[in-house]
């Protein structure tokens, strides 16, 4: 049972590699989500409140990135940036692609949420004498964030899944580690299944946590 060539043995031998890969996956996804959300908030705000020149430019950026597959973004940022003199490691280039991808999605979500608020909200807030920053902070943002939360959680799980694409440019994350283990012992069924299961658990946990937060912040009805 526990000899070379058996699954438990092979798993035990490669435990540190897998954990390391998992760590990289989690790190990349977490960084991409956090940085992408920060950048995406600006994108969303510009899309709604920007002057027309900045709005137009950001619109082009968002449409271009959303129309391109993440895989192409990852490859392009890996090959392109070194060409124009920006030396990044594979990890940084991949992370940059994921952050750009994440920012457009968060931006679009935020724009949708802000536009879905009825105009009466802004008008009512103006009528009681709030300034624009106050209106935004106390009236619009709390409602828009509630609206945007489910889509944001969805984007977060997307990012974890998109982090697998970094394996192609040689970032040693969970999938690439799995591939290496398989090329050593040829146990493709077991180890691909294991990788799939780990990704499933991460995403399922995010989804559950998102649902829990959603329930907590829901308006009492």
């Amino acid at each position, binding site marked *: 049972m526990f000899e070379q060539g058996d699954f438990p043995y092979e798993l035990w031998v490669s435990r540190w590699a897998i954990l390391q890969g998992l760590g990289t996956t989690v790190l990349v996804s977490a960084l991409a989500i956090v940085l992408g959300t920060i950048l995406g908030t600006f994108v969303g705000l510009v899309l709604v409140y920007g002057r027309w020149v900045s709005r137009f430019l950001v619109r082009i950026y968002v449409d*271009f990135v959303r129309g391109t597959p993440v895989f*192409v973004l990852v490859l392009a940022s890996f090959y392109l940036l070194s060409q124009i003199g920006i030396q990044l490691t594979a990890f940084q280039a991949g992370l940059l692609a994921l952050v750009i991808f994440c920012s457009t999605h968060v931006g679009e979500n935020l724009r949708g949420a802000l536009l879905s608020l009825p105009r009466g909200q802004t008008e009512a807030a103006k009528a009681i004498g709030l300034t624009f920053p106050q209106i935004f902070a106390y009236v619009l943002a709390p409602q828009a964030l509630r609206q945007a939360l489910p889509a944001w959680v969805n984007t977060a799980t997307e990012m974890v899944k998109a982090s*697998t694409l970094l394996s192609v440019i040689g970032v040693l994350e969970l999938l690439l580690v799995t591939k290496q283990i398989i090329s050593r012992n040829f146990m493709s069924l077991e180890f691909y299944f294991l990788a799939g299961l780990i990704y499933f658990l991460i995403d399922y946990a995010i989804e559950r946590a998102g649902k829990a937060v959603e329930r907590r912040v829901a308006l009492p009805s």
Partner: protein
Amino acid sequence: MLDCLVAAFAMNSKHAYWRRIAACYVTAIRNTPLLVLILFSYFVLPRFGIRIGKIESFVLTLSIYAGAYLTEVFRGALLALPGGLREAGLAIGLTEWQTKVWIIIPIMLRNAFPALGNNFISLFKDTSLAAAIAVPELTFYARQINVNTFRVIETWLVASLMYVAACYIIAAGLRLLERRLAIPH
């Protein structure tokens, strides 16, 4: 890709058993990266004696993946229909199946159209992942040209512009179709 329609009905069926199976399928597939699924079916299926080419294996994987997403779309569209529709269908003497085919599905498809279009565009972009198992498609060739000629900027710019243009065309076509199919009022 018809599996998603079946699964969508299963999600709403009266039998908890079917609902459970459909929910498992959707949750499991939606939360697993597509690349893992692609590699899994490409490398693991031959071990069970199922020998299919890489294009077939990719198409199979993508339709299973798409099925899970479309199931959610159809489920949402089905839930949005008022229960009176089914009752009205039964009242004019249609059987359960006739009601589903002639009344529920046409109306549901119209409701589902915008979300369906979004999913089709994502699917189109997901085909780029076929490059990972060396299916000769746009991304694969772009990478090859990139490596062969070192015309890095041109290659990736053209490749992504082609994707963007194709996505725009798909979106425009779907919008046209949606307008054609809309109920006139």
